């Protein structure tokens, strides 16, 4: 192509081909010429004013750049928002160039605009991202100086321009070991690291840092961008979780209770040292090997299968490796998290020591009762001795005075007191024999009480005493020695009848009651007979005495009753008012009743 051809081409074609919107406007702001691109962007322009077409206005804009260039003849670049031919606002970079005539006038301005709407949006997105991303973002130069940083970085580490990365993040004077930014500066690759630093308040901050080159191609970048994700909160949570886990683990480990936990398939996942001791298994033999079903009472399995979440058994048996039953208090729970079944846990309290203490206490009480009984026996024997002394004295007195009647009375006294000795021996042997063992079966307390009532009904009637029974019909069976409790009730009813007989009042009423209150089984014998005054009440259970005169009893009845009651884990109480009557009450808390005697 010749030079003249090129000139022609430039004059004729370039105007149409440049990738810009070009328009020529005169001093009235009328568009007098425009290229193809302009038409495609802003539509038909002939006969229109520039503010008509760009802003849809009738009057010129307030800070019109074209006007300024007309006035001063300077070229200008400006960023402007304009309406395109579809009426949408777009952003343009606009060059205003004066066209100067030979006489120096400026009859026209050429304005060239380029659409930067997309660039603007990208820039905005980048700015938001840079400042608002929940990371610390910094740009470093090769001196490790922070040349740019984001809002989150400034909030956390403060605004300190021109400082180096390690000065800001770690308050140190040299780069940290294993610095990922240095690596990126040397090889241009992305690097990561986990670091800890210090914020502007002096608190420790943990973060994951990623560094990458800002230069696309160069192997030795001029700038590196550092992005750090703060994991301080996560680290703290992790730490707290670990602490809480350690705390719970040591609680479980040092618990006196045996604790076993299992996953949702019943496989054991936890077996604490107490459990190792109780069941005689090592945790390693059990965990992930054995199902929890092998250790928990069958009642717990039943409870779970019924859809319940919790089971407490005041007394249960745990079977150890040697198939020995150990008495335990048991508590089991189904573990859930937001209705999701996680597994189950079982707690066992070894009751062997408690059982032994209880047994020792009963034994101590029994020995005390034996001691009191021996003291009481001495009391009774003294009376008998005095009777025997008296018999001999009266016989001698009768013989000395030739008084046959007195001699006979003396013989009678000897006989009475010898008979009392036999009675003592019999009762005492009975007391001692009963000491050995009780035969516990599951009995119906109602049947027992009715039995005793029938036994005394006729006796009471003949003595003119009204014997009544008030027996609860809803009492459930209890573990008791039938003969023992029978003896107790016989003693109490017989005492009550005697009290009525020696009362000054005629007749008299005796009531035998059976109640079941709050898991306590109660037998009560009330009489409105003679009652007892303070001194007698005080001695009644601790001393072996009788108020019934020489022929009626030895006084062992109440001691025997007390002993049997205690052997059943119960207690005996007395309310008595002189000449108004007495109430003897045997109370048996059901959970203290003895276990069934094993059949041999």
């Amino acid at each position: 192509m010749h030079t003249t051809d090129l000139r022609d081409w430039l004059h004729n074609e370039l105007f149409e081909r440049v990738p810009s919107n070009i328009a020529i406007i005169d001093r009235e702001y009328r568009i007098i010429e425009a290229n193809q691109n302009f038409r495609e962007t802003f539509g038909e322009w002939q006969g229109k004013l520039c503010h008509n077409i760009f802003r849809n206005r009738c009057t010129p804009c307030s800070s019109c750049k074209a006007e300024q260039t007309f006035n001063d003849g300077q070229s200008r670049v400006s960023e402007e928002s304009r309406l395109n031919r579809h009426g949408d606002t777009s952003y343009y970079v606009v060059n205003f160039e004066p066209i100067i005539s030979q006489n120096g006038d400026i009859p026209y301005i050429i304005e060239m605009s380029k659409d930067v709407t997309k660039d603007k949006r990208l820039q905005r997105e980048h700015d938001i991202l840079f400042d608002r991303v929940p990371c610390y973002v910094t740009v470093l130069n090769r001196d490790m100086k922070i040349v740019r940083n984001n809002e989150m970085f400034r909030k956390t580490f403060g605004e300190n321009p021109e400082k180096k990365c390690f000065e800001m993040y770690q308050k140190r004077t040299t780069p940290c070991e294993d610095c990922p930014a240095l690596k990126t500066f040397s090889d241009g690759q992305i690097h990561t690291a986990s670091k800890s630093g210090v914020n502007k308040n002096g608190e420790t901050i943990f973060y994951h840092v990623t560094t990458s080159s800002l230069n696309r191609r160069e192997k030795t970048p001029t700038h590196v961008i550092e992005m750090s994700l703060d994991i301080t909160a996560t680290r703290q949570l992790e730490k707290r979780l670990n602490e809480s886990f350690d705390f719970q683990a040591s609680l479980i480990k040092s618990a006196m209770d045996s604790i076993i936990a299992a996953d949702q398939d019943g496989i054991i996942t936890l077996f604490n040292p107490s459990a190792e001791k109780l069941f005689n298994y090592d945790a390693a033999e059990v965990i992930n090997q054995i199902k929890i079903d092998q250790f928990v009472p069958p009642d717990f399995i039943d409870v779970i299968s019924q859809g319940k979440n919790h089971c407490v058994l005041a007394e249960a048996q745990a079977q150890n490796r040697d198939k020995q039953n150990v008495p335990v208090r048991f508590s089991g729970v189904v573990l859930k998290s937001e209705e999701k079944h996680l597994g189950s846990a079982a707690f066992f309290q070894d009751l062997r020591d408690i059982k032994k203490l209880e047994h020792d206490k009963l034994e101590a009480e029994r020995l005390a009762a034996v001691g009191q009984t021996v003291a009481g026996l001495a009391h009774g024997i003294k009376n008998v001795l005095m009777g025997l002394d008296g018999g001999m004295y009266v016989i001698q007195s009768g013989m000395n005075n030739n008084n046959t009647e007195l001699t006979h009375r003396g013989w009678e006294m000897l006989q009475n007191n010898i008979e009392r000795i036999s009675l003592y021996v019999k009762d005492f042997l009975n007391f001692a024999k009963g000491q050995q063992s009780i035969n516990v079966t599951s009995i119906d307390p109602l049947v027992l009480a009715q039995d005793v009532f029938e036994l005394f009904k006729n006796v009471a009637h003949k003595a003119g005493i009204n014997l009544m029974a008030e027996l609860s019909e809803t009492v459930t069976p209890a573990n008791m020695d039938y003969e023992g409790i029978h003896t107790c009730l016989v003693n109490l009813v017989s005492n009550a009848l005697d009290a009525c007989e020696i009362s000054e009042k005629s007749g008299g009423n005796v009531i035998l009651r059976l109640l079941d209150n709050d898991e306590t089984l109660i037998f009560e014998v009330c009489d409105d007979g003679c009652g007892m005054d303070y001194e007698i009440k005080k001695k009644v259970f601790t001393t072996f005495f009788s108020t019934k005169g020489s022929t009626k009893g030895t006084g062992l009845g109440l001691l025997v009753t007390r002993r049997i009651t205690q052997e059943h884990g119960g207690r005996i109480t007395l309310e008595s008012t002189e000449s108004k009557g007495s109430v003897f009450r045997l109370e048996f808390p059901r959970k203290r009743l003895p276990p069934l005697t094993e059949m041999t």
Partner: protein
Amino acid sequence: MDQNNISSPSNLNGKKILVVDDEPDILTYLTVLMENNGYKTYQAQNAVEALKTIQETKPDLISLDIMMPKKSGIAFYRELKLNHETSTTPVIFISAFSMARDFTGPGFRKLIPELDIPEPDGYLEKPVDIPRLLELINKILG
């Protein structure tokens, strides 16, 4: 002469003793013993009978058992001492209890808290030592 009859009946001017005990054998023994020693005796098996007899016979001495039906000897003793008609009558306890601890000093005050009620004139443990009993009676009534 029987060793248990240490005083001659003629010296005693027929002093009256009430014996209270719920056991008939003991009553017989003590009354025969006392009569052999020249005292006039009365018997009662409980506090109610005893009070009646005291009012009727005004005894010079009361021998009192402790464990008796209806009312114990202790309660009865307290009543006697609080009643001005009977408060000056001497009382000795005869009981199978080991009484030294319970019936003297602080032990006695636990049973009878009123400080104006005196301790009894004597106490003897069953089976009684006859010479000591007669000596005690003689000392009180002599």
